[in-house]
């Protein structure tokens, strides 16, 4: 409780620092497209006073009465400056002109040049779409999530997959937001591709250490993905035809300089080629995904703006009429932004998110379909109040969750089998302040009050040690079944050592009320979410991070060294043999434990020049402890990869060619293999002694990419993008199993590894106009 008082006192002090000042504010935009420039530098010439534009391209500076020259700058754009006489609050919108004829020839980042050392963020990564589009990936499909896996502290969930683990946390402990809407399953095709279509994405920010009190609901990280806004000046489009998918994006003004639209779609077409096969089974097989992104925005007037954006995607797999998987996400965000004064901005959003999936089988001898899902309806209100050295954020959100844990329909039983839908309310309030103290120390501190209320109708059971129900309580519609309040303090500090280096530290506490039930390490249509309950307590996490940040050669190179320690409580696992599907008594079979993770992360990035890229290295250890597993001793989690290295290089050879390469290396996954065997009922049974006591072979792989501009005029540009995945054809083990060496000695076994992807070349043709 003392911590809360301290934060409140600090906030009070911050507010009291406000002197008699006037405010200059406005929006910084691209001169051609009208798009807001995020992270543009706005500085007062001759002073150390300055700020950066926010996620909407807006800035605000509070200054005493006087004459000033304000300079606006943004990487890849020509600087612009204006002289002003400030004797009252004033508004100044600015348009910056691109500094290069070919905007793709410069690295356009959505942050300031020295953001690495000047921000308070510890463990934050920002990716621009230019970087994402240059990184070679499987089948040439540019992917936000796969590019994030090349960052320190972020580990891939598996070969070719888009799932990821952050600093020892589980894949379900990452909050993924698309324009404020939570995306519950961010992958297509069992994790092979992410749901994010690069043509519709503006940028992606990952917070794996410190995070603003605005964010919450997951333990390990927040990935905040922002969709691009349509061009308000002219009609434009882009698209591509690739090895496995094609895509198109169109955008333009609805009312010039006032409102715009953007719509982007893509579809894979493996099944179209299957129709060319002779085998009638393959001809009738469906195997594809599609998704659509859209955004409509309207600047009502200088003070008000409204935006509607959303996503809809489905995965379809159908083998004849026998097997089928069908699932996907729908999100929609309606956001209203209002500048109520020169210093105050209000944003109110209404958000909808749904994920559902259906697994079906229909054969002559049996039929069944299993449907699971989750739906969220959320309202969020956020207020930003800017002062000279302080930016105060406060607000709240209310989320109404509906969980669909499963319904099975089959002719094998007389009536459908349905688990009770669960309903819950999450009410969160937060306050957060960024404070600049004498340009040497920057603080960001805040607190999030999170509240989870499980709602009826519901029947809650008590179980004995034999998992048998011994008591039950029924709750009526709307009745409070469970209630969990939590206080989540956040603090991060940046101590600027000099112009080129800083030391940062942070403490973050997070809480998670929703839990993913999954039987495998890849995203499956049978995975489903369940809420905290009287039995299942909310997961909590405390993390401490410290880092040294240093830039070189006038911010051409940025580097960092970070260490962290993270402890997570109320972690969930299952008793051996637990049936995860349609199990009304699942809670009786859950095990509760702890996990911890600590490590060192090194990062060096070259931001400017013909050659750009980065090297990241993580040294880490991630463990779990559960009573009932491994005799209660700590054991490594499967993705505890001690060493994890990524090297990404991108080089502009000339005006026509750009080439890129990535190389990744990681320690093999921690896995459980038998240390003996025996025979029961004539069947060989494996004997295990230690959980995850063995290691898979180390993983490494190199990918190459190249882009050739085939045509380029003022109105049209096309290019060919080549990529080679796993260029030296490394046979990385995806899975290891054991089989008899020969039929004569079935008891003598050998290990056999399954490898998924050999060398895979791909090519795509991309265009834009």
């Amino acid at each position, binding site marked *: 409780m003392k911590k809360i008082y301290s934060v409140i006192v600090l906030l009070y002090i911050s507010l009291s620092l406000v002197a008699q000042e006037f405010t200059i504010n406005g929006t910084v935009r691209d001169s051609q497209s009208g798009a807001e420039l995020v992270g543009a530098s706005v500085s007062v010439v001759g002073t150390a006073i300055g700020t950066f534009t926010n996620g909407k391209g807006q800035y605000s500076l509070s200054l005493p009465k006087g004459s000033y020259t304000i300079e606006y700058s943004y990487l890849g754009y020509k600087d612009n400056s204006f002289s002003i006489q400030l004797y009252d609050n004033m508004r100044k919108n600015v348009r910056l002109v691109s500094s290069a004829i070919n905007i793709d020839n410069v690295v356009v980042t959505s942050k300031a040049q020295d953001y690495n050392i000047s921000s308070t963020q510890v463990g934050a990564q920002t990716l621009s779409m230019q970087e994402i589009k240059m990184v070679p990936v499987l089948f040439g499909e540019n992917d936000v999530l796969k590019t994030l896996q090349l960052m320190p502290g972020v580990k891939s969930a598996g070969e070719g997959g888009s799932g990821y683990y952050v600093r020892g946390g589980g894949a379900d402990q990452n909050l993924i937001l698309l324009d404020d809407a939570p995306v519950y399953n961010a992958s297509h095709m*069992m994790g092979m591709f992410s749901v994010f279509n690069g043509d519709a994405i503006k940028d992606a920010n990952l917070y794996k250490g410190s995070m603003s009190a605005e964010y919450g609901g997951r333990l390990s990280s927040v990935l905040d993905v922002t969709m691009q806004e349509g061009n308000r000046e002219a009609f434009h489009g882009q698209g591509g035809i690739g090895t496995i998918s094609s895509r198109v994006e169109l955008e333009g003004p609805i009312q010039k300089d006032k409102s715009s639209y953007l719509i982007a779609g893509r579809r894979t077409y*493996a099944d179209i080629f299957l129709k060319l096969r002779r085998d009638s089974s393959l001809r009738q097989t469906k195997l594809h995904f599609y998704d659509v992104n859209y955004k409509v925005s309207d600047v009502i007037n200088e003070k008000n703006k409204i935006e509607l954006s959303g996503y809809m995607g489905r995965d379809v797999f159908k083998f004849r009429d026998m097997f089928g998987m069908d699932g996907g996400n729908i999100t929609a965000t309606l956001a209203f932004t209002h500048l109520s004064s020169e210093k105050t901005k209000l944003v109110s959003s209404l958000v909808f998110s749904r994920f559902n999936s259906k697994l079906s089988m229909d054969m002559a001898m*049996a039929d069944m379909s299993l449907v699971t899902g989750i739906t969220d309806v959320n309202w969020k209100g956020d207020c930003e109040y800017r002062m000279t050295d302080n930016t105060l954020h406060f607000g709240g959100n209310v989320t109404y969750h509906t969980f669909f844990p499963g319904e099975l329909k089959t002719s094998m*039983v007389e009536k459908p089998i349905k688990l009770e839908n669960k309903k819950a309310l999450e009410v969160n309030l937060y306050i957060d302040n960024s404070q600049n103290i004498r340009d040497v120390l920057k603080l960001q501190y805040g607190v999030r009050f999170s509240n989870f209320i499980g709602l009826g109708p519901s029947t809650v059971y008590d179980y004995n040690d034999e998992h048998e129900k011994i008591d039950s309580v029924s709750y009526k519609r709307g009745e409070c079944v469970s209630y969990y309040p939590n206080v989540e303090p956040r603090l991060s500090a940046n101590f600027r050592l000099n112009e080129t280096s800083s030391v940062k530290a942070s403490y973050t506490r997070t809480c998670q009320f929703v839990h993913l039930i999954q*039987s495998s390490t890849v995203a499956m249509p049978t995975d489903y979410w369940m809420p905290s309950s009287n039995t299942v307590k909310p997961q909590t996490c405390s993390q401490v991070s410290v880092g040294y940040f240093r830039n070189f050669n006038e911010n051409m190179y940025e580097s960092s060294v970070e260490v962290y320690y993270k402890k997570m409580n109320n972690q969930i696992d299952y008793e*051996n043999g637990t049936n995860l599907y349609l199990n009304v008594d699942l809670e009786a079979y859950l095990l509760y434990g702890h996990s911890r993770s600590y490590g060192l992360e090194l990062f060096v990035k070259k931001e400017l020049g013909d050659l750009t890229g980065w090297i990241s290295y993580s040294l880490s250890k991630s463990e779990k402890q559960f009573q009932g597993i491994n005799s209660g001793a700590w054991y490594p989690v499967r993705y505890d990869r001690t060493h994890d290295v990524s090297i990404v290089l991108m080089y502009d050879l000339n005006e026509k060619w750009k080439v890129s390469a990535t190389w990744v290396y990681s320690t093999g996954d921690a896995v459980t293999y038998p240390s003996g065997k025996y*025979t029961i009922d004539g069947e060989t049974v494996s004997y295990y*002694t230690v959980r995850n006591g063995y290691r898979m072979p180390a993983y490494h792989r190199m990918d190459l990419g190249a882009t050739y501009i085939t045509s380029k005029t003022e109105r049209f540009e096309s290019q060919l993008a080549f990529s080679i995945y796993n260029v030296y054809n490394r046979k990385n083990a995806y899975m290891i199993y054991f089989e008899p060496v020969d039929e004569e000695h079935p008891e003598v076994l*050998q290990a056999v590894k399954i490898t998924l992807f050999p060398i895979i070349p791909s090519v795509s043709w991309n265009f834009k106009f």
Partner: protein
Amino acid sequence: MKRLLHILICVISLLATACTEVMEDFDLNTAEAKTVVDAVLTRDRAYVILSKTTSYLNPNKVPYISGATITIAYNETILTLNEDSAGYYSIQSDFPVETMYELRVSLDNEVITAQSFMPKPVLWDSVSVKRSVLADLYPLPDSVGVLYEILGYITDTKGVVNYYKLDVMKFDTLQVRDVGDDSFFEGQNFQLLTMIAAYKPEDTLWVYLNSIDKAAFEFYNTLALSNSSSGMFSAPDNPKSNLVGDALGRFYAYSVDSVQITFPKKEK
């Protein structure tokens, strides 16, 4: 459900150009040998096989354990099993259903005990066999046979939690083993057996419906998971045992109903 999930994953894995390779330099540790008890009790006999664990990859001959004293106790009866051959102990008797049996294995320095309940048998209502519609879609060579669907129906006993173990044997070879409880179909008619497989003329199947207790269900349920290799699924673990003492294995009593199926001779 788990089986269906595995099928789907296999199909998608095949589409993902998976390939395999033997790992020449792969080795595993060998744990200290542990006692293994394989104890079974049916309506007419009980047997126990005592052995030790062996190396996983390169086992020597299975070390059977001789000289143990093994008893089965139920109601007020205590029977001592005879050692018929090294490590193999058995006795024949008329064991009643709906009875709790207690096993006691006495070795040099240790005693291992276990309890198992033999439920009343649930009987097959019917077991049907017919040529599958897939047989024409996927014609197989004569040496493999023709695809048949085999469906088995039961009526679950109402008011009692039943646990089932299905064994389908083709001659002496186990083709299918599955366990389940009646949580989805308590007291209802249910299609308990659903399988499709290729059979040749004059092949003979025995379809066993074993009624077992909860401990046996948990053993076989976890046994299926324990043999999964490292991959995308959760870490495997030792099957849940009902043995008390420092040993692996299980003791289970069961009652059974079986149906024999002989496939017709090929028409000339």
